[in-house]
């Protein structure tokens, strides 16, 4: 039944002989090129691989975004962005005051709210002046540009800034903190032509982490995490040498509801003969029952 097939196949014996030098070819080559996929098919394979992997990675990236946002927000915070050309005060997750600068060209920058001039350990917040487009230390006159670069006054450096990322909802994810540059050496200032601030009504003041309610003693006892606002009078006395008392105290003998303040250069601040009292609103943090990083808050003049 398969004889016909077999008989036909025997014809293969009439096939021409193989080349006599085939064994030499085995030993000495040339070898066969490994067949590469034709260019068209290779391109198609690469395109297909990209078409599958890119959306997959994108989806994974989008799906894990809330997790990543949360991880970042626990670090420094998420803030709102004002309209183009505007500067707004904001607070990081721990209450730290910052300013968000939205320039006309669309770029956005986060500038620290703290003056880098900290005489005798008492820090100060800055204000934004829209007419000169500068950050000003209204207590001692230091000034910085809208990017935080040093212009003039007693500050040793520019303002600290923060890296930031714009989120899908248009808000800004803040971090990390960037150490400010030192002020230029004398004679190398390049900001001499920046005008003085010509307004008091339109200044943008820093926003406080909390409303300033409760006495310094209450604040110290409540031991909040992060920054807290408090009103009081700073004067010499107490265990740490400096005490923040309820507003109105004229000296340690009239201090009520006070809390010790750490980190103050007591001799520098108070060793000037006359009795020094600094009254007003402060922001501070609480460590071991004492107020630390005590910072004066500029307030609109009534």
């Amino acid at each position: 039944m398969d004889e016909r097939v077999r008989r036909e196949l025997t014809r293969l014996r009439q096939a021409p002989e193989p080349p006599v030098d085939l064994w030499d070819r085995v030993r000495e080559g040339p070898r066969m090129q490994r067949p590469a996929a034709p260019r068209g098919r290779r391109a198609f394979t690469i395109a297909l691989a990209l078409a599958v992997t890119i959306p997959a990675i994108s989806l994974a990236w989008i799906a894990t975004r809330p997790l990543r946002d949360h991880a970042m927000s626990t670090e420094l915070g998420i803030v709102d962005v004002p309209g183009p050309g505007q500067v707004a005060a904001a607070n990081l997750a721990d209450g730290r005051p910052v300013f968000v600068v939205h320039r006309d060209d669309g770029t956005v920058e986060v500038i620290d709210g703290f003056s880098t001039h900290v005489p005798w350990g008492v820090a100060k917040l800055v204000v934004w002046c829209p007419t000169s487009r500068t950050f000003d230390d209204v207590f001692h006159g230091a000034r910085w540009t809208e990017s935080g670069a040093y212009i003039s006054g007693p500050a040793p450096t520019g303002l600290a800034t923060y890296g930031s990322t714009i989120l899908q909802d248009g808000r800004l994810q803040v971090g990390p903190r960037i150490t400010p540059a030192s002020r230029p050496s004398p004679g190398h200032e390049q900001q001499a032509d920046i005008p003085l601030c010509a307004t008091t009504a339109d200044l943008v003041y820093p926003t406080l982490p909390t409303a300033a309610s409760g006495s310094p003693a209450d604040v110290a006892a409540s031991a909040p995490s992060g920054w807290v606002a408090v009103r009081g009078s700073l004067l010499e006395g107490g265990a740490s040498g400096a005490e923040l008392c309820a507003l109105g105290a004229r000296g340690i003998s009239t201090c009520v509801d006070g809390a010790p303040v750490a980190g103050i250069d007591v001799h520098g601040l108070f060793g000037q003969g006359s009795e020094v009292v600094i009254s007003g609103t402060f922001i501070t943090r609480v460590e071991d029952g004492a107020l630390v990083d005590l910072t004066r808050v500029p307030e609109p003049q009534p």
Partner: protein
Amino acid sequence: MSEGRDYEGLFRESLPSLWRALYGFTGGRRQVAEDAIAEAFARAMERDRSVRDPLPYIYRTAFRLASEELRLDRRRGTLQADHVAIEAPDLVDLIRALDALPPKQRAVVILHDEEGYAAAEVGRLLGIAPTTARVHLHRGRTRLRALLGTEEDEEHG
């Protein structure tokens, strides 16, 4: 190069059968058959230690290389078998019929019905199960019979 195995002896001994099988398998495309056989032997010698039984390895490799080469030639549009008519006129019908078979069926039919290997041996040479070899054999023969029969009828019709 192996010191232990006599590859040259194996080559001389197996070449006639291997050559016919590859010549038939490639539809008389000598160059493809030569390339595949030489390359299969060279690779067997290269991988001597990891090749347990050289002859089946050489058959499998040669058939696979030839198969790939034919597929590429077909895609490139350079597949031609016209030279068979000049080189071996008696083979034209057979070659044309074999060409119409799928590669596995073609290889099994040649090894079994021409070279005389048993189905189990064919399976061993091609790296497939004996039952699979029998299935390919049955289908290949049926197809070949039909192809050759039709042509014969046409000749005499």
